[in-house]
């Protein structure tokens, strides 16, 4: 177990390192951000001062090592647009994104898993067919377009919900969240639903497939032969079996929800890190771009690691081994 952890962790470090080099070189090697930042009429002196200030006169490899050194001290550089430290910038935006992801993932799980179970339990019922048709729409129609339809329906036409922004936040435990106010809820519900649809479609398909397979399995027939009621077979036997693939995919998709938050945040003007990265790409704010991307990669690798460990716990057949 310990050897496995070490092997996985060292793999993760290599991946993060490689990605940070690629992102850093890719983002820094092209174009000159100073041109974007300053007035074209500025004197050469101001220009050179700025270049020195941001360390852009150094060779690329040195810039990278300065960057990595700073990262270890918790310093991700200064935003060229907001002129504040990237760390505080990202951390000021992160709660909004995390809260959005959390709510949408919860919605996806609370609706998607029961719906998939039902669709698999009665695969020929009309309800099941409807669920499946909706799930296909859920992941083949682009997220931003559904978001727009939601705004059109619930904000513009019906006027029930605000069309964007985060709304009021209130202190809950040790951080500020919009989940603590009703106004906050009215703001988060539409973006969260929007972000959850793709995941929901995926969960429905996955749970249904698992359910259909399990219903035909010998162990289910054996359980029925013991006189177990269907409800208990589904909840004690089948759920445990399909929880393995569902948890795995769900965990992996958590990371992609974080990435797709970029789209939803733009549509609903949600002030999270996703909106931040789009703005920074448009404004060529490189420290923010690099930090965001490196941060997301780290999150990804971490999530993968955690999912692997959970998987090993859930499935007794999987033995934890060192190496691959």
């Amino acid at each position: 177990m310990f050897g496995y952890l070490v092997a996985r962790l060292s793999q993760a470090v290599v991946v993060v390192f490689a990605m940070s080099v690629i992102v850093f070189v890719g983002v820094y090697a092209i174009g000159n951000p100073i041109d974007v930042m300053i007035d074209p009429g500025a004197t050469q002196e101001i220009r050179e001062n700025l270049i020195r200030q941001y360390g852009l006169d150094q060779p690329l490899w040195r810039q990278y090592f300065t960057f990595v050194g700073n990262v270890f001290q918790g310093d991700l550089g200064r935003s060229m647009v907001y002129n504040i430290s990237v760390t505080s910038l990202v951390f000021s935006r992160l709660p909004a994104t995390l809260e959005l992801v959390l709510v949408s993932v919860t919605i996806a799980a609370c609706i998607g898993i029961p719906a998939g179970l039902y669709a698999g339990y009665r695969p020929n019922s009309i309800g099941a067919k409807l669920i499946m048709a909706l799930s296909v729409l859920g992941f083949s129609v682009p997220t931003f377009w559904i978001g727009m339809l939601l705004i059109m329906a619930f904000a513009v036409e019906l006027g029930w919900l605000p069309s964007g922004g985060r709304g009021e936040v209130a202190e809950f435990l040790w951080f500020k969240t919009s989940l603590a106010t009703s106004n906050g809820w009215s703001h988060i519900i539409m973006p969260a639903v929007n972000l959850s649809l793709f995941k929901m479609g995926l969960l429905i398909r996955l749970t249904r497939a698992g359910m259909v397979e399990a219903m035909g399995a010998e162990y289910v027939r054996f359980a029925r032969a013991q006189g177990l009621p269907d409800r208990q077979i589904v909840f004690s036997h089948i759920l445990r079996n399909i929880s393995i693939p569902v948890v795995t995919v769900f965990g992996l998709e958590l990371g992609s929800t974080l990435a797709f938050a970029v789209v939803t945040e733009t549509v609903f003007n949600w002030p999270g890190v996703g909106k931040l990265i789009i703005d920074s790409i448009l404004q060529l704010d490189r420290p923010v771009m690099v930090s965001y991307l490196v941060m997301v990669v780290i999150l990804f690798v971490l999530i993968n690691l955690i999912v692997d460990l959970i998987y090993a716990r859930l499935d007794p057949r999987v033995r934890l081994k060192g190496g691959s």
Partner: protein
Amino acid sequence: MPDSLTPAADLSALPSAPPAETRAMRLHNFWSDYRQSWVAIGALIVFIMLLVGAFGAPYFVPQDPYDLANLDWLDAFLPPGTVGSGGYAHLLGTDNAGRDMLSAILYGLRTSFMIGISAGVFALAAGITVGLTAAYFGGRIEALLMRIVDLQLSMPAILLALVMVAMLGQGIPQIIFALVVAQYAYFARTTHGAASVERRKDYIEAARSTPLPTWRVMFKHLLPNVLPPLIVVATVQVASAISLEATLSFLGVGLPLTEPSLGSLISNGFKYIHAGRYWLSIYPGIFLMITVVAINLVGDQVRTVIDPRNSR
């Protein structure tokens, strides 16, 4: 986006079709199986109509939406069905610059198709090359290449595309490149899976022991056997490329409005959504949705037909 659903693993074990069947027979069988589903037939018809509409657009739309001389500010924001200064009815209305929406949509659809299909083709080529190289050489090369591919597959395509756009900037070639980077891995994984199964068979060993050059063995002998699953992945990936490009353009990091795709049209229309001018964004969105769903349905049926587990 559908890209994370490609069942590359499912398809990788497809055996090659028995050699006794001729190509024409195979095509015929394929078609008679495909016909089984009415939904799939409908999707195919819709898809073909969209293709014709997009690429034939210059011949039958009332207006060239790129020609500024055609545009009249007085025609801006006409609701659907209004007759404008050109003397014809704008069936889907006009946008903020007085463009006929139907014309803009069909031109935009053409851009979307071009980007989606070329990204699909390049990603296919890149993926086949990587997958075959890995499967053919094995050992360290295989381990390294497939590790990279797996890593990329574990990341959402939109993230990779954003990284590429952040590096390369905006424009059609940049977008295509970004899409290829984001998607080639699906083809590579599928190719590698199918090819590693083939490689262990005797005839590849036999071909390798002849003095034929390596690349010829790879392409002439391995490739035909991995094509069927790749066709399925390709249809799904074209749909996902179109929808990914639309997403990037919507986010404002894809194509500028001077070269509008469906995504940039929707993005532009989104600004006017609160003013009740729904047609600027709804109609291009409907076209996008129909396109993506139609391609996916066709792909679904192709998968059902090719999958040996469903064979008669």
